[in-house]
Every structure is written in C-alpha cells, then in structure tokens.
C-alpha cells in the first residue's frame, strides 16, 4: 500500500473544503431564488401527526397510489383556493382558504370515504401528501 503524503492530505482537505463551501454557499444562495416546488404541505399547515399520515396512507391505497408528491402537489395547486392559500403568508387566512376549498368539495360532491370518514378530496389529498412526505 502506498504512502499517504502531505501533499495528498492537503489536496484532500482542499477538495472537501471547496465542496463544503460550494454546498454551503449554494444553500445560502438558494434561499433567495424563487422556488418552483415550495414545501407545499408545510405551507398549508397540515399537521404532521400519525393519524394524518395513517389517513393519508389509506387514501393513497384507495386511489391505487398517486403519482408521487410532486404530482399530488401540482394537482392540488390547480385548485384556485389552494393556490390562493399558497400565496398568502397569514396562517389564519391560509387555514380559512383550505377550509373553504374543503367545503366547496363537499358542496360539489367531490368526496371520498377513507376508513369510514367522509372527506373532501382536498383534505384527503393533503393527508396523502403528509404520508408521502413522511
């Protein structure tokens, strides 16, 4: 086995340091870059609770699996009230908009039954998202 020289050591440290710097710098820089894939499910305040994930997993089973988190998020974001919720910073307003979206689902018979619960498609999808992001 060859001898590990001082030059090799410094080189390795340099590579790691540059890599760390690049990664750290990128993370900082990225904070200021508008994102196409926001942390959707945190934004609309769905609690990350076991019961939510369980209902979400059942909803996914019932739907025969979904197209993944991104597809689910994209589908949800097509709903005007959810889009509006994503664009607002106020948690109370967000919550109200999500509730309105659910109420609209119920009124327009967009409901699903998951583990006996009669849910709006929106809330079932949000629970499914939590299950996928867990």
């Amino acid at each position, binding site marked *: 086995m060859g001898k590990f020289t001082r030059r090799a050591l410094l080189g390795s440290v340099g590579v790691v340091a540059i890599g760390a710097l690049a990664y750290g710098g990128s993370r900082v820089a990225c904070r200021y870059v508008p994102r196409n894939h926001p942390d959707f499910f945190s934004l609309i305040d769905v609690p990350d609770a076991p019961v939510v994930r369980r209902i979400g997993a059942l909803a996914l089973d019932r739907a025969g699996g979904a197209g993944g988190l991104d597809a689910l998020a994209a589908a949800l974001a097509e709903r005007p009230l959810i889009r509006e919720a994503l664009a607002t910073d106020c948690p109370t307003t967000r919550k109200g908009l999500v509730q309105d979206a659910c109420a609209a689902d119920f*009124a327009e018979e967009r409901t699903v039954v998951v583990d006996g619960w009669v849910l709006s498609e929106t809330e079932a999808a949000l629970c499914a998202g939590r299950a996928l992001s867990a």
Partner: protein
Amino acid sequence: MIADLRSGAAPAEISGDVCVVGTGPAGITLALELARKGKTVVLLEGGGPIYEEESQDLYRGAVTGHDHIDVANSRLRQFGGTSGHWTGLCAPLDPLDFEKRADMPTHGWPVTREELNPFYARAQDYLDLGPFKYELADWSAVLPHKALPLDPAKVFTDVYQESPPTRFAEKFYDRIANEPRIQCWMHASLTDVTLQDGSDVVRSITARTLDGRQTTVKAKTYVIACGGLENARILLNCRKQRPAGLGNERDLVGRYYTDHMTIETTTVMFNEGVDTSLYATDMEAAGTKLLIGLKLNPDLIKSMGLNNNSAFLVPQYDKEVYNDDFRDYGWIAFSTMLKTFSRGHVPDRFAERYCDMTDDLGQVATGVYRHAVRSFMPPVQPARVYKLRQDAEQSPNPDSRVTLITDKDPLGLNRIALDWRVTSDDLLKLRRTHQVIGAAIGAAGLGRMRLGIGEKPDLELAYSAYHHMGTTRMHDDPKQGVVDRDCRVHSVANLYMAGSSTFTTGGCANPTLTVVTLAIRLAEHLAVAA
C-alpha cells in the same frame, strides 16, 4: 258496554252494523268514530283488560329470517293493544312515501298525503299530540334554538312530535264502556270468517274464548284490526271456503312485510362552537314535546334511488356517566314502574316489568347512579360527537313475509313464521343517505362524519323497530295489493282491514299516527257504506 265472553252472558249471536276485531289504536279509534256517526259496533278483543300470559301466548310464532326481531312480545294481546307499550314518537308519512317511483315499481300508495291531511289533523287528539304541524317553519318562532345551517336542497331539519305516550286502555276504557252504541267483548278471539255460500260476502264471524265458549257475530261490515302480523295470520287461517286463505287468491297476504330498521351507527363530530341544542331529546315548544332530526330532500331521495330516513342525533360523551347506554329492557321497566307508582297507580304487567328490572339490575343501578351524578354535575361542555339513530325505511320486498306453520295455538289457528328480510341494498341506501348528510355537514363547515355502515354492510346492525307493516298492503290493482284504497279486501265485498298491515310502504315515520289516521278515514267511509 264492556263484557267478557268467558262470563257466559253473551248470546249465541251478537249483531251490529259493524264488527271490529281488535282494540288497539286502529280498532278503538274506528269503534269510537263509527259510534259517533250513529253506527252500532260490536268490538272484539282477544285478550282481557290487562296483560295475561295465556292470551299473550297466542302470539307465539317462529322467526325464520333476520332474527333481530320478535313476534311474541313485541305486540300486546289485551285491551288497548300494543299502545300498552309503544314509545310515543309520531310523524305523518311524507308526500314522497305515497308517490309512485320509477326506480321502485312496487312503491306508491293509491292515496296521497294531501288526501290524508284532514284525517291526520284529527288523529292528533287521539294521541294527545300538539297541532298538526310537522315542518320546522311551523315551529321556528317558538323553538329556543336554531337549526343547523345545512343546504336545504340536500338535507333539512325534520320535526316529530312525542305522544305521552297515550295508552288506549287507560284513555278510552271508560268511553268504550259508557258508549251505548258499542258492545265490546273481551276474551273473544276471532277463529273463523264465514262467507255466504257461493258469494264473496261475509255472513258471520266466529269468536271463541280459550275455555271453549263461542259466539257468532253478524254485521253488515267487518273490520279486522289486529296488527301487522295478526291481520295476515287471520286471513291465512280462514281456509274453509277459500283454500289459500281469505283475500289470498294471488298469494299476496303476508308478503311485503316491512319494518323499520333501527340502527344506531355513523358518527358525526361537530366543530367546537356548533350549536346542536335543537336536536336534544328533551325539546319542547308551546307545550308540545318534539324530537328534531335530519332528513334528505325528497327530490334527492328520488334522483339517487334512496329510501326515506330521519336521522336523530344521540350525544356521545367521553365520560361514561353522561351516556345513556344503560337504557335496556330493565331500565325501561324500572322507569315505567317508577313513573306509574309516582302517579299513585300500580303499573300494568307488574310481574313482567319487575322481572325485566331484576334481570337487568346492573343496568338499572348504572342508570340510577348516572342520573344522580348528572343532577349535581351536569356536563361541562355540550357534546360534540353524536351517533345517528334512525328507524330507516326498507324497499318493498315480496319475499319478506309472514306465513303459517304447522304448529297451532290452543284455538286451533296455525301460528306464524316471520321471514323478515333485511338486505344489503337497504343498508347501502342508508349508507349513501349518511354520506349525503356528512357532505352537507362538511359543506357547511360544521364538522365531519365517519360512516358506520361499510361498503359490504353488516346486516347485524339492523334491529326491528317492532313496526309490523305491509302484510295486507293497499293497492288499486288486486295483483299488487290485498286491500283497495278504502282498505276493503279486494275479493270480499264487506271485509276491511285496518292498521299498519295496509301500509303499501313503510316510509320512516313511526306508524301509530298513520294507523289512527287511516282508522278515522275508514270510519268516514263505513259510516256511508255500512
């Protein structure tokens, strides 16, 4: 006049304008109404003035279908009939219940709700109810709470009234005894109906006691008013001149038996702050006790092909002390005895009630304890979780039926087998009904629902409401019904049926109000025809 056939005082032949068999709500109402119109009435009661084991035993039979039902003790063979133990909840059938429906070919009465309205209004007094008002709008001005803000195109708030409940024996015994146009014979069980030779006219009926005394009753018109099961049994037993039984030429007597499926399942969780006080079990307005429920819009029921249903909210508490799951036969017997003793009377069927109470002493003790605790420690917060309780309608089903078995009672009449059919379709319709209610609650932002009926329904959820209906159903077409719109047996000129056996379909309203209504209507008809 009230007399006892066992006394030997009865003549060999008794006569009157009308012979009414049965002294339940239908028979007593009919007799009183006819007497008021100047008709003489022979009123026969198979039992005595109070409960007797020997008489009640005549009701014993077999249960061959869905077995959450009973044929021996759910009805009473005594003066006053089954009003001796009914619970008193009343509502008229809905206009929808009378309609013909494209999705159910055998649905639809030959009369409309509008035709029955004047008789419904008169029936209220018999049952000690308030005014004939069963819509929320009739009561909203005097109700202390608001209805849930649900979309009325889907779900609306429905009103029932509660009778004390009226015990016909207590309320009408003296009136019958003092009415000169009525002669009432106790212990007089109908054992045969005789037609005039070669005709479709009843010539006489035979009434017997268990100790062998017998009399013949002759009248212009005969009415059998013995309840949903017994009416069919009597017709099927009259085989002397009609081998298939009276009125049973088309094998319809006993078919289309229907009941209300008593089901307490499906949970509703309301959001904090939602006021459900209107739906409490102790609601009273302008002196009338009410029970308020949720019902689907009739147009939606038709478009979705559902059955009718009223769902009532039963509160569920985390702390068991506030729950009412101790209300079993024992508790009912105990509370009935307590109420009757407190009025200074000895309860009827004392021994039976005492034994019911003793058998269920644990539940009685639980009930007493919980009531005591509640009196000084009422629930801090109103309930937010409720179960839906209902007496749900079934679709008309000719295979659900009463038939005779070989076993005979001491009077020589064959006993019955009841093959009550509860189907997955009935329960799936109820599940869809609940889903609509759940969606309406969700749309209003009031809460969420968890269904208690699965996609593959558990039939064991359904219990009989002991509302025996449909076994001599009313229909204009003799191929589809045993009696015509006037409740006359299609194939017999002067024989009529009264009571819930004539119901074409069951709706979801408790039947007693409609039983009394149809009896008043029949009396009007017979006052002219008899």
